[in-house]
């Protein structure tokens, strides 16, 4: 047994990087935000992305993704950064799949509160080309005006119909501990439907419901009732279309739509909403990728984030148009 482990570790240590894709992305664009002091902003951004794979054996795969980038808004002088890294190891054997992954992301910004999140995920799955069952426990730490620790688990099924339709019901539940003082529980059943008709078009639709319950209560009284901290309900529906328009030219359009009901927002500064706030959020994105040369792609992105709400503080609208050149390094 010891020899097996030693051989495995040696195989990993000396495995060459089987595949590597390092991309330098340079671009710019403009953004609009109805809540910002300067509502229309030109922006410039630069990013370095890397994806690396090691496949020491057919059963074992090791993957790493790293990215670092920054955005500069000349009118407001705001500089925002993104640092992200993830690594995972997967082991496959005759229907079994086990994957352990760790990831970390940080968003330093001169305008906002520092945000960072780290997580460790385990995936255990058993199945065949026709279907699978999976269990995925997760632990995460989020740093943003305090630290929130979360522990969650997800059970999912996947079943393939007519060789082209993948139906994936799942249920995820867990607990969040903001600041280590209170506890919130959440439950999130969802149904995913992916359609791969063959050829160049795919369609994915996801419907989900999420509910957060807090066991801690504010000291404020609204109508004689203690309001739970940061409790909310969310109904979500999203659709994603991918289309290979012609050789190398791809279009991806996503339209997520969420309907929230919030009883109380701990971070909004409003201590008594009086009535539950509702928000309808639509955040469509369209990405068009066009190859310019063997090593260079041009990517045009349109992003929007639109809210409709009965609460003034929840109504945030923003949109951005960005264009990038992506250089794939040898």
């Amino acid at each position: 047994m010891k020899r097996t482990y030693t051989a495995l570790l040696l195989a990993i240590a000396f495995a060459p990087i089987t595949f590597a894709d390092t991309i330098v992305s340079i671009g710019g664009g403009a953004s609009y935000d109805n809540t910002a002091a300067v509502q229309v902003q030109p922006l410039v951004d630069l990013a370095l992305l890397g994806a690396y794979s090691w496949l020491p054996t057919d059963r074992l795969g090791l993957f790493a993704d790293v990215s670092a980038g920054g955005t500069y808004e000349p009118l407001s002088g705001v500089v925002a950064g993104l640092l992200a890294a993830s690594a995972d190891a997967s082991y496959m054997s005759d229907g079994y799949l086990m994957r352990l992954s760790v990831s970390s992301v940080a968003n330093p910004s001169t305008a906002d509160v520092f945000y960072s999140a780290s997580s460790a995920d385990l995936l255990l799955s058993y199945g065949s080309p026709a279907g699978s069952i999976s269990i995925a426990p997760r632990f995460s730490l989020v740093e943003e005006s305090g630290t929130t620790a979360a522990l969650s688990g997800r059970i999912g099924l996947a079943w393939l119909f007519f060789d082209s339709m993948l139906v994936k019901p799942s249920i995820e539940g867990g607990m969040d501990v903001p600041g280590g003082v209170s506890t919130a529980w959440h439950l999130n059943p969802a149904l995913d439907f992916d359609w791969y008709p063959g050829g160049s078009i795919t369609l994915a639709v996801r419907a989900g419901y999420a509910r957060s319950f807090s066991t801690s209560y504010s000291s404020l009284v609204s109508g004689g009732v203690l309001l739970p901290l940061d409790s909310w309900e969310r109904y979500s529906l999203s659709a994603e279309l991918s289309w290979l328009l012609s050789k190398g030219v791809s279009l991806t359009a996503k339209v997520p739509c969420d309907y929230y009901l919030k009883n109380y927002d701990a971070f909004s500064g409003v201590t008594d909403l009086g009535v539950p706030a509702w928000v309808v959020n639509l955040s469509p994105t369209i990405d068009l990728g066009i190859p310019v040369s063997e090593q260079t792609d041009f990517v045009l992105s349109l992003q929007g984030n639109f809210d409709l709400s009965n609460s003034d503080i929840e109504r945030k609208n923003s949109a951005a148009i960005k264009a990038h050149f992506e250089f794939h390094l040898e």
Partner: protein
Amino acid sequence: MLRRVLVAVYLVSFCGGIVLAQQAGELSLSRWFTESQSAPAYRLIEQDLYAIFRAADASSIPPGLLINRLNLAAARKLPPATVVAGMRQELARLRSGSEILDRVAASAGGMQQVTASRRTELLNTVSIYLGGGLSVDFLDSILSGAATSGRPIDDAFQACSVVLEVKRVGGFTDAELLTFGSALVNSRISPSGYGTIGSFIVRSSAADRERAGLLASVSRILRRGGGLPQMELELGRRR
């Protein structure tokens, strides 16, 4: 005496058959020049076309395939010089395709049983694959590999069609495409589901522009007996 007559009749009919087969291309082209409304525009290149069709006859290429290409070129009103160059390229592809089918037939007995019309159909498909950018080595490897392992040749052709679709995404090496094609044809996926795997790769490439190892990872899952559910779990995280 009777025996001599029979031998003579046999020789005349046999050699006549060969001559007729050898002239089939020229006859087809001659008929095309007589009947096609587009023909007058291509009188200038008549001799070049006859030379191409004679070369096709010598390689036993069914003339109907070349006539189809000629009709397509004429329908698009391509200039005569372009038509000659295109027809020469098509002839080269058909010759390569014919050699590939001969090698596949040599790998296993099954291909030898195909009818002439079926062989013409397969030859046309191989020519399309070559025109789409699949290499002779790739087709040799996938088609002969399937024939040797006893897989139906139609499964291998189905896999090649999916690889051709994946190749349109761009950014994949020939070695990656060969690994993927080979894993697909030897996988537990039914041939009617091959296109689904191709669509998954197209979607993953469009959603995540980092393509490093995508085909290698998909091939690994196929070799380990997995399919689309496992690919969603294993690779969906990168989107």
